[in-house]
């Protein structure tokens, strides 16, 4: 069994999407506890990926492939995870705020979070505050990720947070903000829960926030 966990971890590291999904299914079929598959196989593998990326031993496209493999495995796991396991693999709604058409940074951040086990709902670019709030109401994500690359659209992030307050759901979701002109100070000013200067820190923050 531990051999299979090792194989899953290794498959993730090498971005073997089908293989990781198949191994996950096999373990489930064998009756292994899904939480254990998540912890000992998938998270163990993605931990290595994360470290290697930080040490510049892996590149973004490789990490994204690993994330995709993780996603494929999570599709199998999610329905059978315990509540605790499931919450570690929570949902993140991602959006670039209204008036802003930049999307690569947000996409990267979303894909990396996917690699940490999150389920990502990507709303795309230029999303109205109301639509974002509606999506939060509907999908009840643990985390809302907002991206803005323009000084002119940054205030929209604050607007979203205020709208969440008005809708009475601010305390149900943690908000992470990112994008070129966004700063730690700005994030604090608008009452966001975290600021992510890059995609991997975004993932770290997301993991911290759901633990808190």
């Amino acid at each position, binding site marked *: 069994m531990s051999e299979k966990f090792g194989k899953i971890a290794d498959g993730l590291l090498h971005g073997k999407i089908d293989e990781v999904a198949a191994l996950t299914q096999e373990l489930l079929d064998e009756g292994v506890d899904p939480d254990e598959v998540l912890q000992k196989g998938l998270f163990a593998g993605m931990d290595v990926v994360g470290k290697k990326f930080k040490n510049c031993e892996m590149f973004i496209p490789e990490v994204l492939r690993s994330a995709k493999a993780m996603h494929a495995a999570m599709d199998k796991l999610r329905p059978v995870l315990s509540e605790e396991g499931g919450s570690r693999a929570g949902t993140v709604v991602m959006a670039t705020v209204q008036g802003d*058409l930049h999307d690569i940074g947000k996409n990267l951040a979303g894909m990396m979070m996917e690699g940490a086990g999150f389920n990502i709902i990507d709303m795309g670019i230029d999303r109205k505050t109301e639509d974002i709030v509606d999506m939060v109401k509907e999908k009840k994500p643990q985390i809302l990720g907002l991206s803005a690359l323009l000084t002119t659209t940054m205030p929209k992030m604050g607007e979203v947070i205020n709208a969440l307050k008005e809708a009475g759901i601010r305390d149900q979701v943690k908000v992470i903000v990112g994008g070129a002109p966004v700063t730690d100070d700005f994030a604090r000013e608008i009452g966001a829960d975290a600021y992510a200067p890059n995609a991997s820190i975004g993932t770290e923050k997301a993991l911290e926030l759901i633990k808190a």
Partner: protein
Amino acid sequence: MANDKTNCIVNRSPRFSFLSEDQKQTIFHGMLKVLQDTGANVHHEQARDIFKKHGCKVDGVRVYIPPNLVRQALQSVPLMTTIFDWEGNPRIYIEENRSYFGPGPTLVYFRDPWTLERRKCLRKDATTVARVCDALPNIGFVEGLVTISDVPRGTDDVFEFADMIQNTTTPIMAWSYHRGGARDLHRIGCIMAGGEEAFKKKPNYILYSEPISPLVSDFHAIDKLMYCAEHGIPQDYSPCAIGGGTVPATHAGQLVVALSESMVGVVLSQLINPGTCIILGGVQSILDMRRGIYSYGAPELNVLSGGLTEMARYCGLPMFGTAGCTDTKVMEIQSGIEATLQIHTSMLTGANFVHDCGYTESGKTGDIFQTVMDDEIISMARIIEEGIEVTEETLAVDVINSVGSGGHYLYEDHTMKWFRKHWRPTLMDRQSYEDWDKSGRKTMQDRIMEKTRDILENHEGPISRVPEEVKKDIQKVIDGAVERVEKEGL
């Protein structure tokens, strides 16, 4: 002496090329196929109607452009356009083999030239950039390097242009958020030129808008393009394509996509107003797959910009290139290395407008010291570009015979005349060790800062020549912009 040479090729300047004729044709065909088979999204109904009326298939927001229409557009683009300063002097000839360099637009931060702190951009910074560029002989056009934060939100495009155009006679490559801003800029351009008719004869700025890779023209970008075409405003429609991110990681693939995106604008501009001036190009670089940044110092930027310059020329269009920029955080050794390679390559390939001199931190911070360093690099690159002149006189056989073997050339009239052609540094150090030591052991950075601050303290600039009436009229446009944005929002 009469020139009696026959059938002789004379190199006016060194030529350098990445692509063969066949390769260019292949890339060109790739672009035609993409536009025909995949098309591009155009988020503008009126624009789509124009495409449709001229035989393009339109499916939802997707527009498919047949090769013929591209060819037709390329036949109507102007062979040359001249940009004037607002005093009416010709300053930029947009035509083959002429290169002009300038800063880039809209950075998030500005490096304060006095405190050296990286901070939010202020209104006064746009004036700083304009005044410094006005004093730099090798800067051919100006962009603001800033996104001004201390004016009403969404009006900074108008404030920036209004301030800059009065503080430099070097033509401006301007930008705006929307058509409303573009209209205000145009009002200002016309006021400075002395009326709309005067502007038509002597356009004094260019407007820069961007399609979105891959293959999208958003509403405002295309709306501004249409406004420019309708009013005969020279314009630039060029993407920031991110190799491996928004376009293929291969250079040829990137060229195909970037070319296709600009071509959508070229075709539309020519359908609206055949003969209107349009420039393509943009920032062409790669996503750094370790750091997740869009690299402004990668050597690939040089290859891609050079390749696209050749493609632009192949299409008969002017090129908007990129150089003088860096990934490092302030003007320093790394930025010098990156900028030098970029400027030299741009010069050799002959891009028409080369922007982003003064971009640091991968397109996040404007550093006017970098622009001042770039000015010196540009002048050096121009000397290389001037190549070797071979005439009877430069050959100097007479002088060589008369000096003979041994001796020297220091007394010769020939030397007297020609040594003046040698490049003279304004920043590079050539002092003796002793002089350098005595004059304070200044580094290149010290000298650049000194020069910049000296310009800021002493360069007059043209602002005193702007008539009071003109200033008032411009203020009215600014007031109007503030009202417009208050009313309509951004």
